[in-house]
């Protein structure tokens, strides 16, 4: 028990994680990633990926429709801004709850099937949400233009208290304007809470049951265990994470568009989770940060920048490299993303975290085989893999 009901090791992990997130503006500076917009994205997509991992990583159910929850979270948050108050607390609460409700509905139906049928069902639901947001629900979602907060919206609570912002409306946390670093710290706080919850789920009997479902659902059922409620709970929790991520997008920028519900957005979060490491605690966040970081860096490159980068080479070599690299950067960033995706799935299905573990173990193995022969090392390796 002890510190927040965590074991000593997990408590240490939690403290290190929180410190790393809160100090991100400092230690990310050398990487050129320490500006608030990007940091906010790291936190938001990190949260999204953690939530997705609770479903995909623990139960093995691959959902291709998580963007729907992101979208509904965003829309609810904007409506909470419009109708109630620019304070972000109601927005976060309502956004997360409505996403949870939608997840109950979709999950109840989709979880009747497994495997690719489940993927297709979730995809179908998400596409329905996306198409409806674009067409019939335009009065609620404002269609292609996107939903934004206007100054003459009701904002009942704000008007009752008499706090009305001047200029274009910005989310607000009891006096803190949700822009720049305050907004990042708000997202970071949510990320840390989200990580804590996910850690607790991973270590709980509930998490163990989910993992058991992943490894052999039939056997679970034969032992007289009803798996459906647990799957549904995992699905709903994961949907609520996505909803919260959607809400935070609106908190940092009060605008919601239907395009964030498209299935490519669902694909992106799958990629983040895979890249980092499915079923690991830190992997999804790592994946989200890397993808958003490289997206940001790469898409800013253009031919001139490339010529600068390769300028130390002789001219012909410089031109050669620029021609090769050019399709992969700037507008072609998705090409890099696709290639990365394939490389990871082909060579490192466990993601980067598994890669690190392998590297780490190889070194340990080498060290211990020098000391005591290889027999002990294989035992140690088994234990290490079990721990992950």
């Amino acid at each position, binding site marked *: 028990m002890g510190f927040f009901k965590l074991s000593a090791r997990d408590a240490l992990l939690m403290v290190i994680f929180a410190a790393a997130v809160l100090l991100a503006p400092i230690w990310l500076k050398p990487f050129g990633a320490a500006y608030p917009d990007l940091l906010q994205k790291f936190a938001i997509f990190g949260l999204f990926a953690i939530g997705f991992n609770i479903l995909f990583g623990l139960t*093995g159910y691959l959902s291709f429709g998580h963007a729907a929850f992101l979208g509904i979270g965003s829309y609810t948050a904007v409506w909470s801004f419009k109708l109630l108050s620019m304070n972000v607390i109601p927005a976060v609460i309502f956004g997360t709850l409505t996403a949870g409700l939608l997840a109950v509905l979709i999950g109840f139906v989709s979880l*009747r099937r497994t495997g690719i*049928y489940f993927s297709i069902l979730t995809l179908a639901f998400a*596409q329905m949400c996306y198409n409806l947001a674009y067409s019939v629900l335009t009065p609620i979602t404002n269609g292609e233009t996107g939903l934004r907060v206007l100054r003459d919206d009701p904002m009942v609570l704000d008007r009752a208290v008499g706090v009305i912002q001047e200029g274009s409306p910005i989310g607000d946390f009891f006096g803190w304007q949700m822009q720049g670093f305050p907004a990042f710290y708000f997202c970071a706080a949510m990320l840390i809470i989200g990580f804590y919850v996910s850690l607790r789920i991973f270590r709980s009997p509930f998490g163990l049951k989910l993992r058991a479902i992943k490894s052999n659902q039939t056997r679970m059922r034969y032992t007289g265990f009803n798996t459906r409620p647990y799957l549904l709970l995992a699905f709903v929790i994961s949907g609520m994470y996505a909803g919260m991520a959607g809400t935070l997008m609106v908190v940092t920028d009060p605008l919601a568009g239907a395009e964030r519900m498209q299935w490519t957005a669902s694909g992106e979060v799958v990629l983040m989770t895979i890249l980092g490491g499915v079923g690991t605690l830190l992997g999804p966040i790592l994946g989200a940060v890397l993808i958003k970081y490289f997206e940001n860096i790469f898409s800013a490159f253009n031919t001139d920048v490339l010529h600068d980068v390769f300028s130390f080479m002789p001219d012909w070599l410089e031109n050669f490299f620029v021609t090769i690299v050019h399709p992969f950067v700037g507008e072609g960033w998705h090409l890099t993303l*696709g290639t990365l995706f394939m490389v990871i799935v082909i060579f490192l299905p466990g993601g980067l975290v598994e890669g690190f573990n392998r590297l780490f173990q190889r070194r340990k193995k080498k060290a211990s085989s020098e000391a005591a022969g290889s027999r002990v090392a294989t035992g140690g390796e088994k234990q290490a893999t079990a721990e992950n």
Partner: protein
Amino acid sequence: MDAIFLQILNGLDKGGAYALIALGLTLVFGTLGVVNFAHGALFMLGAFCAVTFQKLLTLSKQVKDESITFFDAYKEIPYLEIWLGDTGAAIIDWAVPLSIFMAIPVMLVIGLIMERGLIQYFYKRSHAEQILVTFGLAIVLQEIVKSFFGANPIPTPAPDIIAGSANVGAWFGLGDSVVYPYWRMIYLVFALIVIGSVFAFLQFTTFGMVVRAGMADRETVTLLGIDVERRFTIVFGIAAIVAGLAGVMYTPILPPDYHIGMDFLVLSFVVVVVGGMGSLPGAVAAGFLLGILQSFASMNEIKSIFPGIDQIIIYLVAVVVLLVRPRGLMGRKGVMED
């Protein structure tokens, strides 16, 4: 009556495209056991075969325009027209149908390379990993096409003679309101021919017999000393050709851009699942069925009762079918149920 007839016709050509893509998907799934998310990219590559062929035919030379005398004006004349005169112009006009001859070998090669180079390593991996790697491949292919051809749709018109519309209603004595473009009719016929030949190939050739046997019980066929894997590779090539041809012929209906494949892929997967994973007739039937349902749902009369139904009908049908008949319309027992 007229309206219903017209909607059925409208649904058939789109249904034809769905059926062709779903047929290839099912073939690949039934033989190799691979869920191929890059199949839409093959459709897109086929469409861009037509674009490339058209570009090749219209390679032009700058010629001085003699009709303008005030200043030096130049116009572009395709080499084909310079060399062959009117015949050349006619060939250019028929670029899209002619590009079929280029698309078949090109798509076969692409399919074989894809299977040998990537897919074969994924037979034994989980479906989730297959989906992910082919999804990545689809992104890569589509970005490569984008970097060559740009992001905008490229117009690829049908030949002039068949560019207009037929008064189909008059043929059946239904009045003049049923007007239907010739090209869509050709697409439908073409789709039926391709589907028919794939079925005939599987049904009446020894090769097809082995493939069907392999689909039913791979192990036994292998034990009989037949190299099933090699035949399945060729089946993948055939599936690539089918998707490619569907793409080539669709270009006059919808000018292709780089994400045309993805748009069709999602729908085709729904089609496959509705038809029943692993069932070829199911895929074809579901393709046409969903195409027709979609075109009915986009009628104004129906839209006024259920607003927005045209946007979600396919997904709605998929959800209902999966819940009522979990194996799809014609799915077999034991396919994808582990």
